[in-house]
């Protein structure tokens, strides 16, 4: 066993954490800069834009790196959001803790003050939580404010020209009827009608105008509204940050109009609640937001039939289409997947007739056996009368499987695993569509809606296992074209009443596909968690700022009272004793994490030229908050009007009420907690013990003097 002492004044583990986290600085906040990660040995590169993908692509052999990766993966698995925050804070707090160590603060004092400090902050920021119901009321009411807004939009458009680098888009989310969808670029204005018939389009802006029933139209359009808004050359997204993605949102909205005609619409309030909430949580990611709002609208329409309103992530799948422009992204009811052209050819025979569907939860191959089945090795087969026909391997199996499928009149088979190629060919020849690699939750949705019972082997099949009522068609893009993407063809499988929705994600850039998919799921899960939590945080840095001001207050608390409580607070006199002395130093270290967080976000979004400038701005607000007596009141007032850290004198000073930004509660708090836990875990580690064969390598290597051997 090799043994390495890691706890010098400069703690190796903490340094590793902070240097790994440094790589993720630009991934913080809504304006992320992507990174290329190049593997020098193979010259392959990956484009990444999230902390999870960053760590996946890095070679992490150090123990601290392993733990960091594990922590980020756990956050990702649980929340799908907050990973960059986690990564950043882990780095910032590592640095801060190293500084404490250099000032001779004992480890136990750092551990107890920091973890108690974080708990105290988490309690404090509860007052920035807003219940979902309040959010809905607020968001909807703030939008029924017809014209007060319009003229200013124009003006803002002009002001924005001062800053041509940043394309600023402004969209008033749900407008009152006459204030139809402010349209962005002049050239798009001719398409106004299209927007109006697009109930699912982005912000659902025209929702109130559209009555879905019977496709009866639609446009009670107040021309003035449309024209007035058309003068807005630029829009501002519903984010505290400016986004350039709005552009593609707009054009895609156009494209969408036809495909979505049949889609559901919405009536003003409750419905839009979710749409609005999604927007406030999207932090400026327009592509995902548009899709998410379509999903919300679809699920709402369904819920009206079934009576319960819920947002179900298990019924959402994605299908990535490479080679189509990004504005073709849309949501299709049913299950969209890619098949080979040969398989697609089968669809022609189906026309519109309802299909009999079979679900298989394993592979569809001769060799496949259910998990846990051990193939006998000690069985020898004797063939007494060889004949030519039986010699052909697998032919018997093929024909018997095909017979089963034909005798049960199965038209469509969804298989969880792989499909034997020969069988696939035979099925195609017999007009049976077999689709492999279908995920378990897709099978389960189809099982519910078609009453098909999943089977493992075809020999298990009986009449009760086969479902019915499925329909298959070629998936058509919004402009009505069926897509042929070279090797693979998208098809759509639907069943009457199927709750499944497929977000079809498109991109012409292969390496961006992953980013788009990740971003989409992040948006989905943000909404999901907001609904689960039943509350959201006031976003835009409000929470972090309140933490900072709370820590200021904690640090200034007279030592006397702190001392009295210390022992009770920490259960244990071993932890309590040295705490009071170092309290303020350690609390400052905790605060520095959030302060850096705010300033890096401001830098990334180009709201501050340098971190120094950003820090000054944060300090300025902290001081003002402290001076006004109640920091909470100050923060509520300032953030209630929009984004405080945007920089006070922007063009939006007057109509901030539309620019709500919210954050997830649990995901954020958990990201903090996980980051601090990781840092404290590494901090308290004083030695690495290396076991296994690596020990002998170390013993003989030049690094052996760093280690001790038992």
């Amino acid at each position, binding site marked *: *066993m090799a043994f390495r002492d*890691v706890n010098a004044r400069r703690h190796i583990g903490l340094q590793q954490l902070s240097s790994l986290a440094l790589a993720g600085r630009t991934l913080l906040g809504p304006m992320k800069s992507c990174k290329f990660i190049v593997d020098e040995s193979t010259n392959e590169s990956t484009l990444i834009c999230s902390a999870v993908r960053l760590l996946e692509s890095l070679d992490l*052999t150090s*123990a601290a790196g*392993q*733990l960091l990766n*594990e*922590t980020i993966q*756990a956050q990702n698995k*649980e929340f799908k959001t907050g990973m960059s925050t986690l990564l950043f804070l882990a780095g910032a707090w590592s640095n801060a803790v190293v500084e404490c160590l250099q000032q001779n603060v*004992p*480890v136990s004092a750092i*551990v107890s003050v920091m973890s*108690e400090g974080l*708990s105290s902050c988490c309690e404090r920021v509860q007052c920035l939580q807003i219940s979902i119901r309040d959010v809905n009321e607020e968001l909807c009411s703030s939008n029924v404010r017809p014209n007060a807004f319009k003229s200013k939009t124009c003006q803002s458009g002009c002001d924005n020209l001062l800053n041509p680098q940043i394309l600023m888009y402004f969209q008033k989310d749900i407008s009152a009827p006459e204030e139809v969808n402010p349209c962005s670029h002049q050239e798009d204005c001719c398409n106004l009608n299209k927007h109006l018939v697009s109930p699912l389009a982005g912000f659902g802006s025209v929702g109130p105008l559209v009555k879905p029933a019977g496709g009866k139209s639609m446009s009670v359009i107040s021309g003035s509204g449309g024209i007035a808004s058309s003068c807005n050359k630029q829009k501002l997204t519903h984010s505290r940050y400016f986004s350039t993605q709005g552009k593609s949102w707009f054009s895609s909205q156009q494209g969408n109009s036809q495909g979505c005609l049949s889609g559901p619409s919405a009536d003003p309030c409750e419905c839009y609640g979710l749409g609005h909430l999604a927007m406030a949580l999207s932090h400026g990611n327009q592509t995902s937001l548009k899709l998410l709002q379509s999903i919300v609208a679809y699920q709402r329409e369904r819920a009206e039939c079934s009576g319960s309103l819920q947002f179900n992530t298990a019924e959402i799948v994605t299908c990535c289409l490479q080679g189509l422009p990004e504005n073709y992204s849309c949501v299709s009811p049913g299950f969209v997947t890619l098949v080979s052209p040969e398989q697609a050819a089968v669809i022609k025979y189906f026309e519109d007739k309802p299909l009999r569907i079979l679900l298989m*939860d394993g592979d569809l191959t001769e060799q496949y056996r*259910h998990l846990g*089945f*051990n193939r*006998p090795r*000690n*069985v*020898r*087969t*004797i063939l*007494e009368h060889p004949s030519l026909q039986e010699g052909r391997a697998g032919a018997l199996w093929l024909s018997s499987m095909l017979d089963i499928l034909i005798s049960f009149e199965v038209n469509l088979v969804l298989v969880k695993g792989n499909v034997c190629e020969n069988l696939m060919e035979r099925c195609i020849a017999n007009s049976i569509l077999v689709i492999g690699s279908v995920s*378990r939750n897709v*099978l*389960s949705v189809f*099982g519910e809606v078609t009453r098909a019972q999943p*089977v493992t*082997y075809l020999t*298990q099949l009986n009449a009760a296992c086969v479902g019915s009522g499925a329909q298959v068609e070629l998936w058509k893009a919004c402009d009505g074209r069926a897509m042929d993407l070279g090797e693979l063809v998208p098809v759509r499988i639907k069943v009457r009443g199927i709750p499944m929705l497929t977000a079809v994600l498109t991109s012409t850039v292969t390496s961006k596909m992953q980013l788009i998919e990740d971003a989409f799921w992040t948006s989905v899960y943000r909404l999901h968690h907001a609904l689960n939590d039943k509350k959201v945080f006031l976003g835009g840095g409000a929470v972090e700022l309140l933490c900072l001001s709370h820590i200021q207050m904690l640090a200034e608390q007279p030592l006397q009272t702190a001392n009295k409580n210390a*022992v009770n607070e920490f*259960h*244990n*006199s*071993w932890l309590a*004793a*040295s705490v009071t*002395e170092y309290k303020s130093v350690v609390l400052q270290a905790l605060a520095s994490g959030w302060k850096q967080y705010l300033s890096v976000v401001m830098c990334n979004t180009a709201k501050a030229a340098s971190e120094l400038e950003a820090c000054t701005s944060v300090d300025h607000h902290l001081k003002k908050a402290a001076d006004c007596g109640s920091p909470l009141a100050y923060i509520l007032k300032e953030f209630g009007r929009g984004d405080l850290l945007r920089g006070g004198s922007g063009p939006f000073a007057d109509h901030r009420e539309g620019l709500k930004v919210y954050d997830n509660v649990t995901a954020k708090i*958990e990201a903090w*907690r*996980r980051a601090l*836990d*990781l840092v404290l*875990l590494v901090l*308290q*580690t*004083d*030695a*690495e*013990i*290396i*076991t*296994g064969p*690596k*020990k002998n390598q170390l013993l003989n290597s030049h690094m052996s003097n760093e280690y001790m*051997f*038992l």
Partner: protein
Amino acid sequence: MSRLEAKKPLLFISEPLNKDTVSQSLSLLTGILKSCYGPAGRLKQLHNGVGGYVCTTSQSSAILSRLSVSHRVLSVLMASVQNHISRFSDCGLFTAILCCSLIENFKSLNVAPCTVIKISKHLLSLCMDYLKSEACGCRIWVDFSSVETLLCLVRSILTSKPACMLNKTEVDHLSTLILKAFLFTVPCHVESNAVLGKCVIVPVKGRRVVDSVVLPGLLIETPEIQLAKPPTVKRTCSNMIRIALFCVSMSGDGFNPEEGTITVHHGISIETLELNQLLNVGKQLVNDEVGLVVCQKVIHPSLKQYLKENRVIAVDRAGLSLMEPLSQMTGSKPIASVHLLSPSCYGSLKDVRIESFASKHFVHLIPNDTVVCSLILCNRNETAWDELKRTCETAEHVLQLTIKEPLALLGGGCTETHLASYIRHKSCSLSTSTFRDLDCSRTQYQLVADGFCRSLESVACSLNHDEGEILTDMVYGHCWFVPSGFPSVSNWSDLVSKCGCGINGNTENLNWRLLQGQFDSPAIQGCPRELSVKVVDFLTLDCFAAKCSGLQVALETANLILDLSYVIEDQN
């Protein structure tokens, strides 16, 4: 052609303890173990150095099981500590540190090993007699009619492992859960020989600790449940659910791959024959009104389908660890063959439900009489979860030991310092006949006793990992901690606030002295007094049985190692 290699000669090492390499390794091991001790202990990252799983821990069980040591002396030490841990779960570090200190202290004495051993055995018996006597000042009775003391005991164990990463709320939540789980395992109707039930820990990694819950009965994870609607369970006429428990694989591959070869004619499928056999079992189960079939291993999909069609719930892959509690809870006998099915093997259940927790789905088996429960244990990441699991198991074990012997020792170093001051006091007042019996002089006895006490005190000192001072008081013999950064003053009462176990406040002048660095202190000292136990909320307590055993194991192992004069190694 075979090649013969000459046998290597045996390796003799005489006086192994005097070898440099051994004493270096021993002091390194002592250092590692001491640095882990207590709530402020430092953690160790155990990993393979090439990017594998990292185990972050300060628990002796995790560290010792992964350490490989090159010298036999260390192996002896580690083996006896591990043996102690397997019997008591708790106090492993205490045992190991004490043992190392004893070896170190006794080795430096200029007294013959055999005399040291005799004297130290006498000292041990003094300790054990004192600990078991009513007059013992460092133990308290555990009152099972209230939860306070029990909670203190559990809380002390949880807080002593910092790698669990728990904050105050989480410690409180989890202590309550562990205690609740333990109380579930105590049978309600006690007959002549009561057997405690079992608490099964169900892992849910990635969630918050406060999401953990305790449920009566057992949970079996089943990924497939989402593919099917929750079934309605078939019940017998007495409204119970009949359960059949299989410990044999029902996957349809029932040949033994080890023995011989089976020859079959082409066209005959053994698989089909096996499946038919299984379906016959299924038929019998349906006829016998079984409502739930649980299999330790895999059930063939066709059999599952058949059972489902007949409204029998089939749950497979229950795993070996669940078999014993399953059979204990349901009264069923695990069926080991699919050929012989006797109705007497069936057990019964009150209810079966489907539960979802996080992203996992479980079949929840609810018995009539709960002695088996499930603790769904959550923690944010894997390394902290593993540590927490070990800690929870220790806590459950300690509660079991405590119900057998309802005593607890004061923790936080107080028992060690108290015991040391008792021995110092006692060793001065021994009669000369004792020395004659032991065949030693008073001086020799004093020397060994002093070494013994210093070893005990050094365990208490190991609780301190930052700079600072450890004190003991001359009245109760408890252990006190003073943070660093204060000038060495005579009036300690300005600095101390509470003793290690939390029973003493700084209310009277207790005449403190430094624990370390004053080894030549006059041993004239009164017998340490017992403190009347008020109800104190946050006492630090240790398991009585585990600590007593630890003390014995440490001393006996130290004696064994001191007595080693040769190590003979077979090098082949």
